[in-house]
């Protein structure tokens, strides 16, 4: 049982990192990014390939993965700079689909749908599985803490204020002399870097990456985490990620309660429930549990 909880805490941390990355891009920058599964995948594959083919150690592979994801994010931001809202949602979702398509078909590089296995991680094999999980969760949560502190500082700094101003009204921010494009691209790149780091840690922890792991469900879970926690709030993003893992794992008991259903039916019920949760949340508490706190200045009428 404890083993199971420790392993879950690793995934909670990984979702936390993804939610933090998305929070910078979407929460602060106002750029919806439904392509985060693609950036997560780029990080995971880059890290796995760096370890397997270039024989780099995990830290070096993680840095490479982070930089590559940042580059891909910057490129995506430049291409989509003029798009907003629903258009951006369509294009970023399409981006993730194309990345998944590439992962499934560039067999020479990614081994296709079979995926890459036996990705090394420090300690695997030497430590007992339980101690390896403890070490992994420590590493992942250290990353979560560092990234959230960094992003929190960033959001309080003039940079974060400018980003929020752009989110609220691009034209006003531009008139105030902010270089809108530079802010948008850098925020998108930094958020993507965090997603790439999450991908690298994911590949190292599970030891296996395949295209299936990066479908739209991942994106939806992170959107759910961020919406649950409160868009714009860093603590909320992490809290939301924990909540999502509790939610998705907590429905495991359904199989025991409904013995007449096949395993596939139980799985589809559980997946469907994620959608229901997100719909309920958007309907009844769109601002999340820990809404972004902003100093507001009110003018008297």
């Amino acid at each position, binding site marked *: 049982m404890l083993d199971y909880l420790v392993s879950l805490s690793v995934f909670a941390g990984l979702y936390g990192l993804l939610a933090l990355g998305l929070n910078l891009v979407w929460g602060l920058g106002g750029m919806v990014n439904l392509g985060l599964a693609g950036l997560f995948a780029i990080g995971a594959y880059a890290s796995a390939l760096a370890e397997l083919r270039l024989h780099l150690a995990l830290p070096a592979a993680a840095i490479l993965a982070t930089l590559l994801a940042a580059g891909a994010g910057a490129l995506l931001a430049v*291409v989509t700079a003029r798009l907003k809202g629903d258009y951006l*949602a369509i294009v970023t979702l*399409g981006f993730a*689909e194309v990345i998944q398509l590439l992962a499934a078909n560039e067999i020479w590089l990614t081994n296709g749908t079979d995926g890459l296995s036996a990705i090394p991680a420090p300690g695997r094999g030497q430590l007992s599985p339980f101690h390896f999980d403890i070490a992994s969760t420590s590493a992942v949560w250290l990353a979560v803490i560092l990234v959230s502190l960094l992003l929190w500082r960033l959001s309080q700094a003039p940079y974060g204020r400018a980003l929020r101003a752009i989110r609220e009204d691009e034209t006003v921010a531009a008139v105030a002399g902010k270089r809108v494009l530079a802010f948008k691209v850098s925020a998108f790149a930094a958020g993507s870097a965090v997603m790439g780091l999450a991908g690298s840690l994911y590949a190292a922890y599970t030891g296996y990456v395949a295209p299936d792991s990066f479908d739209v469900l991942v994106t939806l879970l992170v959107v759910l985490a961020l919406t649950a926690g409160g868009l714009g709030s860093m603590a909320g993003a992490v809290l939301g990620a924990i909540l999502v893992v509790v939610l998705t794992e907590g429905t495991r008991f359904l199989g025991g309660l409904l013995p007449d259903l096949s395993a596939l039916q139980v799985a*589809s019920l559980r997946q*469907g429930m994620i959608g229901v949760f997100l719909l309920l949340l958007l309907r009844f508490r769109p601002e999340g549990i820990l809404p972004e706190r902003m100093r507001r200045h009110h003018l008297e009428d």
Partner: protein
Amino acid sequence: MIATFLQALVNGALAGAVLALPAVGFNTVYAVLRFPNFAVASLATIGAYAGWVVNTDLGWPAPASLLAAFVVAGSVGALADALCLKPLRPLGALVAAIGSVALDLVLQNAARFAFGNNPRGYDLMVFRNWRLGPIGIGPQEVEDAVLAVVAMAAVFLMLRATRIGKTMRAVADNATLAESKGIDPARVAWAANFVGLGLTGIGGMLVALDTSLDPLTGFRVLLSIFAAAVVGGLGSIPGAVAGAFVVGIGEEMSTLLIAPTYRTAMGFLAILIVLSFRPGGLIGERAI
């Protein structure tokens, strides 16, 4: 060389005619309700399953099965919208769009729950390809395309000639003005969803006839639907038709140059190019 080119052109045009249905459906919903409904993917799948049930269990022929696809996808879609997405629309197009992704997950898993992951086949005659010189044409594809054109013609007629069609166009043109003239926005929303998502259901069945039927049938063409809708202009019905032919032919032509598995990536490329150079699409936004 010319023969392969012509063959790709013919295949692309036939695929485009089928793709036009969900694209027109997507844009009908966008025109009236002003948000991209990502749930078109699973509604296409649900339409395909509805047609399959009618075709294999009741033994009805293709046109009757398509009617079932229309009615079931339209009803499920309109009901789900009223229940789940309508309350989200006041919060903005993006919130409604994200809600529709969640709804899509729910509906896709409902289909999986009911029918499982195994691919299903329709109970229809398989004909040999016709030959026109060096070019082969599949009678099934031609029939699909003809049925698609008939369904679209019916919708055009509905929008032009009937009262509810005219009110839909009025709301698409100017929602505030339409409401002040006494048009009930809720009724128009129901009509737009029923017609638009019903068309998507027919499109889903035609796609399934051409490829395979499983819970991801609709999702696999989602990128092509977006591409057709965006290339033509979001919210424009003539645009969706034009966009579907551009994307259908483009995808088919691309297989002459790159691996066929990347044909849907062409859709993404088309979206990027159109949005970069002509953000309103080829025809322009919101014209029905």
